[in-house]
């Protein structure tokens, strides 16, 4: 059974080898062909014989060291390619494989030679290599593109940021526009009754002393009471007049807030503006507050002088009001690039961190009930923004507050 199975298996193997499209030969130690399949026969002993000196038994000029001997002597497995010139433009490439065949003792008794047409494989290989190279080139091009894309994305992101900023600015301007219209209309509506109130309060203030004069020389038990009641009237009327004047001041600021763009731009010496504003405030600063001027060399600034002075006035008033008792207001100016920087600092009570963010909002005040209308710093902010400048605030509780105004030297319409 076993023998017949082996025989059957051998004949099956023989037929498989016979049918292989590749040339298969079994070569003896002497180099002679022991077995060959159809493909080997087809190629012809002569046809291939010259490659390896007649089937590896002789030295061949193209094979300086006969590979067959290497396999026989050293038992190595060898594989190489040979090019067979067919005389036409294309040549075939063959893959030659030599493998040792050992007997039961492990001695190499024969060599199995297989020759396989590798032209297709090689051309596929070449094709794959060229494709790989092409891919590589494309990849590097793609990476270049990717880098370019990254740069563009960055640019776009910057542009988007700028766009968002200008959108915010536009929204701010729109809101400001609406607010200005509203403020102007409210200011106008208040103006008429306020005018009547101021005028009447003023007339009452004038009338009281006349009444007193009229009662001079009048005798009678009720004159004392009359005089006393007149004093009450006088005090009340003075309060009324003061209150009306304060409303008038607030209204003036509100009107300025809504009518900034009426004044023309001109070149202006900010030091002159600061000095005259300080002079105007002299009576409010009195002796308790010293003013330290630290002016640098600054060029004339193209601005709306009245508006700038109003901004300085509000900052100085704010500084003065922040100081309880004695203290100092420090004013510094300097030239930085295309800007002029004006710093107005005080040694006052300082502003709490959470309030710092809101100081420029219209209506925000920390002096509720003490004359704070919440317009002053909002107006400063508005004026500085109208000039395309910036205003910053830094404060330490108990140490003081500094406002830093940056104004562009050139007209804001230039280059915008």
């Amino acid at each position, binding site marked *: 059974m076993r023998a017949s199975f082996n025989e059957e298996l051998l004949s099956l193997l023989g037929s498989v080898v016979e049918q292989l499209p590749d040339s298969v030969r079994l070569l003896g130690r002497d180099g002679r062909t022991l077995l060959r399949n159809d493909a080997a026969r087809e190629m012809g002993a002569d046809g291939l014989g010259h490659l390896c000196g007649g089937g590896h038994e002789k030295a061949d000029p193209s094979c300086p060291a006969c590979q067959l001997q290497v396999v026989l002597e050293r038992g190595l497995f060898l594989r190489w390619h040979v090019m067979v010139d067919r005389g036409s433009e294309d040549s075939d490439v063959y893959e030659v494989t030599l493998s040792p065949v050992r007997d039961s003792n492990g001695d190499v008794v024969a060599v199995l030679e297989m020759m396989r047409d590798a032209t297709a494989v090689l051309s596929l290989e070449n094709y794959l290599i060229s494709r790989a190279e092409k891919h590589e080139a494309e990849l590097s091009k793609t990476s270049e593109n990717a880098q370019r894309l990254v740069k563009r994305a960055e640019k776009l992101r910057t542009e988007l940021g700028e766009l968002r900023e200008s959108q915010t600015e536009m929204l701010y301007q729109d809101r400001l526009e609406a607010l200005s219209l509203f403020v102007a209309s409210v200011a*106008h509506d208040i*103006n008429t*009754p306020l*005018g*009547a109130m101021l*005028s009447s309060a003023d*007339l009452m203030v004038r009338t009281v002393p006349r009444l007193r004069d009229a009662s001079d020389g009048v005798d009678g038990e009720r004159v004392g009471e009359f005089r006393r009641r007149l004093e009450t009237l006088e005090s009340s009327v003075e309060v009324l007049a003061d209150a009306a004047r304060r409303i*008038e001041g607030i209204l003036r600021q509100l*009107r300025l807030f809504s009518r900034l763009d*009426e004044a023309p731009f001109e070149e202006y010496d900010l030091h002159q503006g600061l000095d005259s504003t300080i002079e105007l405030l002299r009576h409010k600063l009195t002796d308790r507050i010293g003013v330290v001027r630290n002016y640098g060399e600054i060029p004339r600034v193209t601005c709306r002088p009245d508006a700038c002075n109003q901004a300085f006035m509000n900052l100085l008033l704010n500084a003065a009001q922040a100081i309880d008792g004695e203290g100092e207001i420090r004013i510094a100016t300097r030239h930085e690039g295309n800007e002029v920087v004006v710093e107005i600092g005080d040694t006052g009570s300082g502003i709490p961190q959470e309030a710092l963010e809101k100081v420029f909002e219209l209506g925000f005040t920390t002096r509720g009930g003490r004359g704070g209308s919440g317009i002053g710093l909002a107006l400063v902010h508005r004026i500085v923004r109208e000039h395309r400048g910036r205003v910053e605030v830094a404060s330490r509780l108990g140490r003081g507050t500094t406002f830093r105004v940056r104004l562009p030297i050139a007209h804001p319409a230039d280059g915008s």
Partner: protein
Amino acid sequence: MTEKGDSWILVLDDDPIVTRTMQILLGEEASLNVATFNHPSDALASLDDREYEVVVSDFVMPGMDGIEFLKRVREQQPSTSRILLTGYADKQNAIRAINEAGLYYYFEKPWDNEKLVMVLHNAVERARLVRELDSKMAELVHRDNSLEELRARLLKAIL
């Protein structure tokens, strides 16, 4: 100072709070006769009854604005001093008013009593002087005419 009783001032404002204030203020401080109106048509009608030295008008009113009203006043009583009192601080309208209505003065609300009274007195004075001048001119023209007549009669008598 002008005597109360012969100088008249007209105040027109659609808001009674203003006309009432003016009535009290000017009556007390300016020694002037004050007529106040809250409607332009009523004020225009009163121009037929009386000659005013000064007319003060609000700017924004329903029906007719202050400039238009003061133009009508100028047509009817050219020698009157015209004053605009406005709640709108608006330079363009001020210039328009000065050019179109021949404004004497432009006041913004809220006004200052003392300044207002002073300006009104000056305005009354101006109107009176203009009228005096007018009447002197008229008299001169009349005398000139009489002289001419006399000369003609004289010539006739001699010839």
